[in-house]
């Protein structure tokens, strides 16, 4: 069995997902996880596929996607996940949403990412865009348990002051609470407490 991380980009057109997944199916592949978006007219997809019954090579996959998607002018990158390799260790922590808003200038994402990396905060999802002169960035980051959100906030605020940006650091539960109808979640270590019939 072999597994691959596959990314494909192209100018957006109808039918690219159909084409890419068809090529993988032809090779006996099964998609385990997939994320796709269109950004400023460009299609991008990243997925993990495994080939259990008929092991494929990296080059076979690249060729199959190119061949089936000739009309899309696809840019394809394939990375094999080595069998038995130790999973990469990433820092753990609580999931916070970091929002940065303000005037656009080159290097903002780089600067923010540097501030987080210096504190060991791991970015797990990030979306940034510029509309006119306005820059906005929303990211999910794992903040280590021994670090307070105030520490990250003051670091980002320090950066923000120098670049006319406002920065906000908020636990993800507030966004879950305000946008999802499921029961309100509080910190894992606190669950089970605070119920209205709790004795004290």
């Amino acid at each position, binding site marked *: 069995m072999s597994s691959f991380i596959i990314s494909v980009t192209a100018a957006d057109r109808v039918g690219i997902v159909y084409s890419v997944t068809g090529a993988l199916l032809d090779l006996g592949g099964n998609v385990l996880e997939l994320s796709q978006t269109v950004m400023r007219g460009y299609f991008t997809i990243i997925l993990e596929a495994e080939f259990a019954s008929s092991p494929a090579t990296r080059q076979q996959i690249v060729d199959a996607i190119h061949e089936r998607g000739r009309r899309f002018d696809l840019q394809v990158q394939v990375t094999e996940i080595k069998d038995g390799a130790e999973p990469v260790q990433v820092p753990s922590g609580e999931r916070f949403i970091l929002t940065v808003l303000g005037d656009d200038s080159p290097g903002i994402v780089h600067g923010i990412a540097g501030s987080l990396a210096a504190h060991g905060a791991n970015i797990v999802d990030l979306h940034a865009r510029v509309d006119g002169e306005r820059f906005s960035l929303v990211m999910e980051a794992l903040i280590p348990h021994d670090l307070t959100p105030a520490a990250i906030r003051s670091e980002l605020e320090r950066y923000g002051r120098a670049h006319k940006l406002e920065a906000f650091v908020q636990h993800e539960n507030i966004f879950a609470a*305000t946008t999802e109808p499921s029961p309100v979640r509080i*910190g894992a270590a606190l669950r089970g407490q*605070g119920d209205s019939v709790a004795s004290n």
Partner: protein
Amino acid sequence: MHRTEDVLATLSMIRQHKLDVRTVTMGIDLAPCSSPDVTTLCDRIRARLIQYAGRLRAVCREVEGRYGIPIVNRRIALSPIGRVAAGHSTEGLLAVARTLDAVAAEVEVDLVGGFTALVQKGWTEAERRLIAALPEVLSTTKRVCSSVNVGSTAAGINMDAVAALGHVLKETAERTRDDDGFGCAKIVIFGNATNDNPFMAGAFHGQGEPDCVINIGVSGPGVVKAAVEDLVAHAPSRPTLGDIAEEIKSTAFRVTRVGELIGREVAARLGVAFGIVDLSLAPTPQVGDSVGEILQAMGVSRLGGPGSTAALALLNDAVKKGGSFASSSVGGLSGAFVAVSEDSALAKAVEAGDLTLAKLEAMTAVCSVGLDMIAVPGDTDAETLSALIADEVAIGVINHKTTAVRVIPVPGKKAGERAVFGGLFGEMDILPIHAAGGSAEFVRHGGRIPAPLSSLRN
């Protein structure tokens, strides 16, 4: 990943539209503190407040930092002192009030409620003494708030207490003359008072509550106004009032959820019970944080004019529906406050002559909570104030809802002059009382207005 639009919408509610947690109110049962010795009683109260509320400030700060949402006030609501201090003299009651004031400062809460008597059917000697001591308490303490429940749908209205409270308001105002009678802003007179209201001045820790509980008062007039304005401005065609109600409901959902999240987290960190979210829309004097502005966004440009009551009814109902879907722990007053001096748009409507006391009374039939933060002429006689209280409480008693009165007879000032209370209490032009001075005989009859019939409800 949370959608960027959802993150920015929530952030916008906090940053631009003043969504905050108006109060984290810790309810504490004081029954175990009772003692025939006043020193022991005060010592026990102090120890119990510090035991439960000693970490309240620190925990609120932690939770604020975690979620990036302001917690504006921390407060304590206590078991009605009229019962806890039963058997004590007036001096004993004053010692309790001074203790509460001192401990509230020590644990850094801004107000402590519960200097309270529940006398809807009758009053004990202790409760009679407590009511008589209110002018002294309200004029000599800074943080102590009082409430008196004078009526309920089950019991009717205790008109003896109502009559006494007219004099209490007059004397309290006179003793705080230099502050435009501000002492009266710290007392609420209720019909059908709730046990778990977190908002001051009327919060107390009622029967059926646990030893200690965290109740939350959220606030979001600015958020609701922004949502209505946005709908009206950007809908492809003129939105119907049904569309507006739906918009308010979904906004109330978000506001309520913020309150529940903060309440559960604070309670869990303190190791005490979480009680309820009170989803009342509570205004502040800041422009953009006004219930009146919501009605204006709905199209009622002259607050107090025809349409005001219907618009307020729609708003109040939609808020409750959205909040009830958001949380199974909604309680307290949960409606829209029309606190006049605290609401810049309502205060302006008074200045313009559009909003009258009679219209306010009508509006309180469809919203929470009653005649709230209303300055009236200083020469209003005690019986007229009592009759005003009786009218408002009657609306609540007959309609099975909470109503309340917080009026301030401003010493030395007449209708149209300015009363200034400062801070969150705001300011307003003094409202005239139409046909004042003709109700003394009615009030002096005393006794009890019987409980209303619960059938034949039309």
